[in-house]
């Protein structure tokens, strides 16, 4: 595991599709710029140096692509490399983070808006009011009488619960499936379960975990869970 930013991995994330092309562009541009500056310092033409720099750094990059592509260390197609396993672990952590953060926090906000529409925007208020009236109408048809205010509060509570249950269900099932699949309990599994459990009561914890996880992934190339696993060195239990 390296401590420098692993831009190659980060660029493989769906939300950062341009990172790798940008890295290549920046490398070649830096090569060109240093060529131009070096040429100027030697009393030469800046543009000539720039062109030479761009050509040589571009060719250097192309050569690396060819040589690394033919490396005997490359895993055969279809077989997972250790990087793939690490990427799986990272995605797993991010998945749990997203489930907890979006499920609990996102729906908590929506739940609050339903319970207390004064906080909502005008458009949101209109939608909530329309929906509440339609629920009341359907309830009346079934012989149930409930005020619009009560309906809004009940719907808000249900939305909030849905978020909390969803986040917990995703966290619990992802971690247990991972343990059963690997036939071991890792430190990252324990952390995931603890975060899921705490996020049920304090939804903000899920969001904080996601931020830490993403921060670790972007700046170190490995998720927080991966760091925990590296720190313990071995699985906690293996069967």
């Amino acid at each position: 595991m390296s401590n420098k930013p692993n831009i190659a991995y980060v660029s493989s994330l769906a939300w950062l599709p341009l990172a790798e092309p940008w890295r290549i562009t920046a490398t070649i541009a830096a090569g060109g710029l240093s060529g131009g500056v070096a040429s100027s310092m030697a009393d030469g033409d800046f543009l000539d140096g720039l062109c030479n720099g761009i050509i040589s750094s571009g060719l250097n990059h192309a050569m690396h692509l060819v040589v690394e592509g033919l490396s005997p260390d490359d895993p055969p197609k279809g077989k997972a490399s250790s990087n793939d396993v690490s990427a799986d672990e990272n995605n797993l952590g991010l998945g749990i983070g997203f489930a907890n953060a979006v499920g609990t926090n996102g729906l908590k906000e929506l739940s609050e808006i339903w319970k207390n529409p004064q906080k909502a925007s005008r458009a949101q208020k209109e939608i909530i009011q329309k929906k509440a009236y339609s629920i009341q109408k359907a309830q009346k048809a079934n012989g149930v009488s409930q005020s619009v205010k009560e309906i809004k509060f009940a719907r808000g509570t249900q939305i909030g619960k849905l978020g909390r249950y969803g986040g917990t269900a995703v966290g619990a099932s992802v971690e247990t499936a991972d343990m059963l699949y690997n036939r071991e309990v890792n430190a990252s599994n324990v952390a995931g379960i603890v975060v899921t459990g705490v996020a049920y009561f304090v939804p903000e914890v899920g969001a904080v975990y996601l931020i830490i996880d993403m921060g670790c992934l972007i700046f170190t190339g490995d998720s927080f869970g991966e760091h925990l696993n590296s720190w313990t060195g071995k699985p906690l239990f293996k069967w």
Partner: protein
Amino acid sequence: MFDFLFQALYFYFERREKGGDSVWTASFYVALLQYIMFCSLAILLDIISDGTWSVHSINLKRNVTIGLFLGIMFLFYYFNLRRYRKKKDTIIAKYKDHPANKWFRGWMYVIIMALLFFSPILWALLHGTLIVNF
């Protein structure tokens, strides 16, 4: 057993959650317990069969396995919610005067869940089949 647990949890959350639909919460907790039981049995089966009957031996991809377990979890919840929304009143009436209501408390649920999950590991540890690396 689950019906008793449902009504105990229902009353527990009914006291705590004012204005909320406690059937949803109680059903969720029963589903979570059933899911943990299911996972414990899977671990136990894996240990007893020495890996022959393990999730790994099904030869599914890791992400597919996780999706499968997620589906199982939601199925548990769906069927519990459906059942308890229909039969809530009958179950409450049935277990209203059950003697276990006198000593069962909400926090015991957490202990049961933890014991259920760790029991196969404890069992394996006692029988010396588990490799403890920590």
